[in-house]
């Protein structure tokens, strides 16, 4: 209707847009280079182990970025899924340490030395791996189906998921004979038959964890550029409108919720051989919020923000807690508040904002990188929690 004689090429993908899509892939490549090549060659075994731990959190954070940043679901209970993966892995390693037919040490300590039947299948490595992936998928599908089909959203969704994390931790603490209770599961000796005290094995575990982080980054990169990614953002911003386009928004959100749960579980599973422990304090409400803090800091709706934010928060936790062991939690709380107040879309939003201040040729052209980035940056700010 307006200016019908203008060129029609506008509706096609411009080279700039293609570049911005693959540019993200280059950025993931850089992260991979640092984590998989530079870090193992330059860091001490201790530091590398710490970095591995942050990578495990970052895997969970990537999922939170998907569910919260793009899907608008403030998942405050990802500790539950982190815990499912973590405990499944820990049970398998505990049984490895106990030897064939053996019973984990804490069961003789706190109980009568008999093992509950549901522990038995975790002797099998493949079964454990299947539980790490399928367990959270099934649990989150059932939970998500119930919650999302009833159109629970916003603060109610957040409180519900947070309550699950509290309930999960309470359940673990109250079942000391089956799960190790407050102490959790620790003292492992091997990881799928490999000696955990061997530096090479430690490095390999680190490499697997960092590799999984890169893998999940590529997965969400593809999700974000896919039609599903666009639909998810659309659902986040105008759920009712999506319903009147013939989609059931609950199903769209459910996919993101389940994917986020699986990522949290994989992160939890890799956390265990690196940290050497999983306990209720790694999966409770506070742990879930720590995961969120990293995502918020990095920029929840950006591709790399959640992962880099989680790595930074993990590093900050180690560095500051070495100097101020008791005050770290205050730092963390203050950080979360400051980010939410002054930088709601996270650090990832600084760059596009700076770029917007300096008008360039590229950002002035419609459909160019500038507008894309602007939209990206604002996306987080507009999203309701």
């Amino acid at each position, binding site marked *: 209707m307006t200016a019908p004689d203008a060129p029609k090429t506008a509706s096609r993908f411009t080279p700039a847009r293609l570049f911005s899509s693959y540019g993200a892939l280059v950025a993931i490549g850089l992260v991979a280079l640092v984590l998989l090549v530079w870090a193992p060659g330059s860091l001490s075994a201790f530091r590398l182990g710490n970095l591995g731990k942050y990578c495990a959190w970052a895997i969970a954070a990537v999922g939170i970025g998907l569910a919260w940043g793009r899907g608008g679901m403030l998942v405050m209970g990802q500790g539950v899924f982190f815990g499912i993966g973590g405990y499944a892995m820990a049970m398998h390693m505990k049984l490895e340490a106990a030897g064939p037919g053996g019973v984990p040490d804490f069961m003789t300590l706190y109980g009568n030395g008999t093992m509950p039947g549901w522990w038995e299948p975790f002797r099998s490595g493949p079964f454990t791996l299947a539980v790490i992936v399928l367990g959270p998928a099934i649990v989150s599908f059932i939970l998500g189906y119930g919650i999302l089909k009833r159109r629970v959203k916003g603060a109610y969704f957040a409180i519900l998921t947070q309550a699950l994390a509290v309930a999960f931790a309470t359940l673990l603490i109250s079942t000391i004979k089956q799960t190790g209770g407050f102490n959790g599961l620790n003292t492992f000796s091997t990881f799928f038959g490999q000696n955990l005290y061997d530096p090479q094995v430690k490095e390999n575990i680190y490499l697997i964890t960092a590799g999984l982080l890169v893998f999940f980054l590529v997965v969400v990169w593809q999700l974000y550029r896919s039609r599903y990614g666009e639909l998810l953002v659309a659902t986040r911003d105008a759920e009712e*409108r999506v319903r009147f386009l013939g989609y059931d928004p609950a199903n769209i959100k459910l996919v993101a919720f389940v994917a986020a749960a699986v990522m949290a579980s994989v992160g939890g599973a890799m956390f265990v051989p690196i940290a050497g422990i999983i306990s209720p304090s790694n999966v409770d409400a506070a742990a879930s919020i720590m995961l969120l803090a990293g995502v918020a800091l990095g920029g929840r709706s950006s591709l790399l923000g959640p992962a880099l934010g989680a790595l930074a928060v993990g590093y900050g936790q180690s560095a500051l807690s070495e100097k101020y062991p008791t005050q770290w939690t205050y730092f963390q709380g203050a950080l979360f508040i400051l980010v939410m107040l002054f930088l709601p879309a996270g650090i990832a939003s600084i760059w596009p904002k700076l770029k917007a201040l300096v008008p360039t040729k590229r950002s002035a052209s419609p459909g160019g990188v500038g507008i894309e980035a602007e939209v990206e940056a604002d996306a987080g700010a507009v999203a309701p929690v």
Partner: protein
Amino acid sequence: MTASFLGQDYLEIRDLTVDFDGFKAVNSVDLTFLQGRLHFLIGPNGAGKTTVVDALTGLVHGTGRAEFRGRDLLGMKSHKIVRLGVGRTFQTATVFEQLSVLQNLDIAAGLHRRAGSLLLARGKTPAKVEEALETIGLTTLANRPAGVLAHGQRQWLEVGMLLVQDASVMFLDETVAGMSTEEREETGELLQRIAGDRTIVIIEHDMEFMRRYADFVTVLHAGTVLAEGTVAEIQADPQVQTVYLGTVTEVAADA
């Protein structure tokens, strides 16, 4: 739209009642929306126009029957109704502001895609989307975020989204409200262009717009059908004049 549907696609509503805790917002309404004409629903505020559409699109619960292609729309879920080919817009245009015009249309065009194909990025722009961009005149703005569109352009984008989702029944809720005179004209022509084999129902307060473009008019008042017919018939109806048209045309003349 296959040829066999031509002239036979209609929406038949019988005894539609919407009860809000004892208050009957729509009371035993019979309506038939036929293909190929611009059917206007008019009536004073609170007449039940939007409520009728809400009931037909699954937003509120209604009783009675609303048959389209052999299915009763009442009791169906909103997204299933859309999949059957009944689409709608809302009084305030809601487009996805963060996404581009093209992405908005592409999402709307996607309801019949297989779930698996959603995991892939869009390759080239689907022909259907390209065509709709042309029809609604937003081709040059395809890559701009929908948030920057002017009010009228947003409404056209909404119409475009109905076009690509193959809606053969379109409910348009006060589409020209707040539009400039030229925008109204362009909208009217756009609707006439696309009416063809579609059933288009327009809720409207703008009497001038209605007079100019309506093929058929239904006047609702207090939840019931007051009168039906062509513009001339409606204008001649003394009941309509006392209840509705007189007052509103006066208001419109003042504005």
